[in-house]
């Protein structure tokens, strides 16, 4: 019952014929879309930017949070320009500075109104050689991928729990499913993030707050620009699937779905076999 009564909105489809509903307007099924502000952390490029664009097209007010000031300001200006109305506001923030998340969340609510949706998409994946054990690179990955998610997740959860509404979407990775030779700390940081989101979901669901974990496979983004990813989907396609998973209130969504069976197989490989593989 609660599920039926919860506010919903529509993210449209992949085919370019999306129907955007003004914030607060009823959708074709008679449900009312969310009206609050969305925060997208990691919004200056890749999946975060694609999500921010789709949310803005759908009539939402979007706070773009990212580190690179020039890119972020340009993206916010571009969204406003293309839509012909103010829809996006840039907030420069280094996710590695976890202590700044809470005050920035408060500032965004003060300036743009109550937030009812958080998308945490920030992530770093530095190149790591097979014989490299560089603590500086490892620390950065933990700070951004894990601690950043915790800082922003806590800030949102505290408020959403009080209001008994809201949704949190965290973009983890298929890389979290196994510890692999190529990127030990990327795997570990994403696994930590994934487990944190699961705990948050379990803690908040009984209060009407939804937490969705996204595990993307190959997506064409600046972070993966140097990699040869066969069958990669575009960031916009990934964003569409993420918003569909959010609307379906999924706990965990592989993006695209084919990664669920693939990762099932990879997770099922016994360690004595997996360590012999170079995947």
């Amino acid at each position, binding site marked *: 019952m609660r599920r039926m009564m919860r506010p919903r909105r529509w993210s449209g489809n992949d085919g370019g014929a*999306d129907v*955007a509903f003004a914030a607060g307007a009823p959708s074709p099924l008679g449900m009312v879309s969310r009206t609050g502000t969305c925060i997208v952390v990691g919004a200056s490029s890749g999946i975060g930017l694609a999500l921010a664009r789709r949310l803005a097209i759908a009539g939402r007010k979007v706070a773009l949070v990212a580190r690179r000031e020039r890119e972020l300001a340009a993206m916010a*200006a571009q969204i406003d320009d*293309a839509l012909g109305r103010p829809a996006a506001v840039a907030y420069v923030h280094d996710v590695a500075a976890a202590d700044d998340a809470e005050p920035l969340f408060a500032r965004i609510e003060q300036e743009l109104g109550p937030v009812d949706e958080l998308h945490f998409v920030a992530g770093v994946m530095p190149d790591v050689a097979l014989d490299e054990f560089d603590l500086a690179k490892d620390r950065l990955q933990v700070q951004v991928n894990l601690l950043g998610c915790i800082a922003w997740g806590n800030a949102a959860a505290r408020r959403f729990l009080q209001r008994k509404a809201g949704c949190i979407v965290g973009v983890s990775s298929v890389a979290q499913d196994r510890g692999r030779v190529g990127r030990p700390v990327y795997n570990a940081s994403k696994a930590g993030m994934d487990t944190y989101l699961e705990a948050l979901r379990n803690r908040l669901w009984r209060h009407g707050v939804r937490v969705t974990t996204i595990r993307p496979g190959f997506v064409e983004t600046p972070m993966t620009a140097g990699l040869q990813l066969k069958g990669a989907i575009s960031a916009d396609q990934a964003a569409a699937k993420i918003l569909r998973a959010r609307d379906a209130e999924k706990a965990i969504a592989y993006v695209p779905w084919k990664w669920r069976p693939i990762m099932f197989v990879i997770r099922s490989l016994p360690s004595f076999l997996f360590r012999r593989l170079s995947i």
Partner: protein
Amino acid sequence: MTTMEAPVWRDEDVRGFGMAVGGRARVLRPTNSEQVAAAFAEVRAAGGSIALRGAGCSYGDAATAVGGSVLDLSAMNRIHDFDPATGIAVCEPGVTVRDLWRRSIGYGYWPKVVSGTMAVSMGGAASMNIHGKNNFALGSFGECVEWFDLMLPRGESVRCSRESDPELFHAAISGFGMLGCFTRLAIRTKRVHSGRLRVWGIVAKDLAHNLQILEDLRGKADYLVSWLDLHGKGAGLGRGLMHRADQMQPGEDPEGLRFFEPALQDVPTTLFGVVPKGWLWPGMWCAVHMRQVALVNWLKFRAGYREERQSPYLQTHGAFHFLLDYVPRWHWMTRPGGLIQFQPFVPAAQGERVLRTLIERCQQTGFVPYLGVLKRHRPDPFLMTHAVDGYSLAMDFAVSANQKRRQALWRFCQELADLVLEAGGRFYYAKDAVLLQSSFGRVHGEPAAARFRALKQRCDPDRILQTDLSRRLGV
């Protein structure tokens, strides 16, 4: 991909985009300007010459040197900066149109002038002063160059802008690689308010109708280009399908915001979502070699009516502009002889008469182009410009592997060139493969040709920059 190691000379087959001209040459791919200077010094010391080459998208011999040396700039392919406030990109010469728009579109900018293929390099685009489907409105590529660094053949690098050295600026751009090597260029792109264009297909029943549409829409449309069925005779002579595209205003296409993502701008790689387009060229080869080109053109013309009924429609910038990239390796359909493109530029007052004569002569002689493309142009300030206040008709001829037939095609094109030059027309070195030495002065006017030769003497007194084109034209 660049490397810090010194490049090595390689013996390669270096051909024009149309594959009909070119041959073996020694090729060097520098990765920075010091290596360009070193190559110039090496060639000068040996008393030889070298041809500059970008992405090799000139149809003819503008970037070939049969039996000689070629400096291929494609490995100097870094975009040093893109300023989202101004839309100015600072690029190395090997940066392609694709590299540029992939960098700029995310910020809501699109190159002002793009070619029909996105493989063209910035250095090549500036050397040839290329144009796009908006030449009548925004002019040529050179008009969006803010400044450039030019490595002169004696190893001196000069930064040049319209203000600092107007003569060199307006001659190096359009100077088909005769004065020096671009090592860095600042290119201004334009703001776009959507990742899509609004596109109309308009059926033109004959040549006069085509020209009338160009005149009626000039000043209203942002892009205009007409495909011509050059097999149409009588009342259908010069029939075709005009495409008009307009940019969106802010707020006009909110959904277009999504299409600022580069991955959504690339042309589709499959037909109907299934068939890889890389497999299509053998079918096209059959059409060319089984003499079914007239039928294919007629079918395409008839399909234009359907497109007209469905107009306007929305199309991404990439899908609208880069028709030559729709079918990978499409030019292989003309194997083994390859193809040449003959593109005369004719003043508007003489336009209909000259173009009609050219098409009729093609049909009379049996050398009928498999493709014709009509565009509107305006003059620009560059010394070796091809632009006129008038029209151009690009005609693609499949070249026979039979030497007699091939020579006959060359003679025929030279005969057509005479008609064009008599009418005050011009030619475009990114396309040309047939002009004679005697034509150079007639294309540009003797005073301009003399000024260019004087500049060549000033910048390259040892005459180390030579291509098959420059030797053919006696520059």
